[in-house]
């Protein structure tokens, strides 16, 4: 089973990287872009075969390491 973890900055946490991309897109003439925020995608290959157990396990991984819940949100998707 494969899981995809998407980590994003919480609202209100300044994202200077997103701001820089916003500026670069504007300089390329893409003037229809509002705020840009940058996150991370982490793909995991799991040994688990039971989806509920895998969900609980990945959630624990996110809380303990993959995301810093002080500043980040996470979402988990399962593929295959």
């Amino acid at each position, binding site marked *: 089973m494969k899981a995809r973890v998407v980590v994003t900055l919480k609202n209100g*946490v300044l*994202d*200077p990287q997103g701001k*820089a991309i916003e500026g670069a897109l504007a300089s390329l003439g893409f003037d229809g872009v509002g705020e840009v925020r940058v996150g991370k995608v982490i793909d995991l290959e799991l040994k688990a075969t039971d989806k509920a157990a895998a969900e609980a396990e990945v959630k624990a991984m996110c809380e303990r390491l*993959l995301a*810093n819940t*002080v500043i980040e949100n996470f979402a988990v998707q399962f593929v295959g």
Partner: protein
Amino acid sequence: MKAAVLVFPGINRETDMAKALAAVSGVKPAMVWHTDTDLPAGTDLVVVPGGFSYGDYLRCGAIAARAPIMRAVAAHAERGGLVLGVCNGFQIITEAGLLPGALVRNASMKFICKEVNLKVENRETAFTSAYRHGQVIRCPVAHGEGNYVADDGTIAELEAEGRVVFRYCDPTGHISPAANPNGSTNAIAGIINARGNVLGMMPHPENLIEALHGGLDGRPLFDSLVAALPKAA
């Protein structure tokens, strides 16, 4: 003082820190490898030095904060033992949950390597008693992610309890956005936990402790620790 300096892969300020501790206290600290599970017996100060542990992968300090030795550091802090985290060390102990908040990318997006001015906001700690209240000191910084953030409640609590120990300021002690190198909330450069035994700071006091460094403004921090801790046998 019986100090232990933690060493993680990618850390590069451990020797500076060890030299500063030895120069001021007269006792060489133990260098403790990250895979160790225990601190040397009798350790009364743990220092987490600066650098780029694990290449800053995932988040600065995130991997190091989960290293085996960090359980012993948490237990040491729980017992009331002193912990000092500088630069990456501040990021590591914050990621480990020993201090609240987080350190994120500098607002300027730039890595900053320069000398800044700091205001000593609280001298009633084991780390700062040798400074004067409100003293303005010079101190080098070298970081890309030193922008301190926390939720509003945490910031209010830190401020109300005098737990902002160091703040970025100009040479006259004035706090302004222009004197804030990284965009930290309320110009926070260093904070302490509620119990007063865990201090984290982005600037490097270990790099300003002898005349050849160009100043001695970091030395009182180590003098404070020497005064706070029993003399090593």
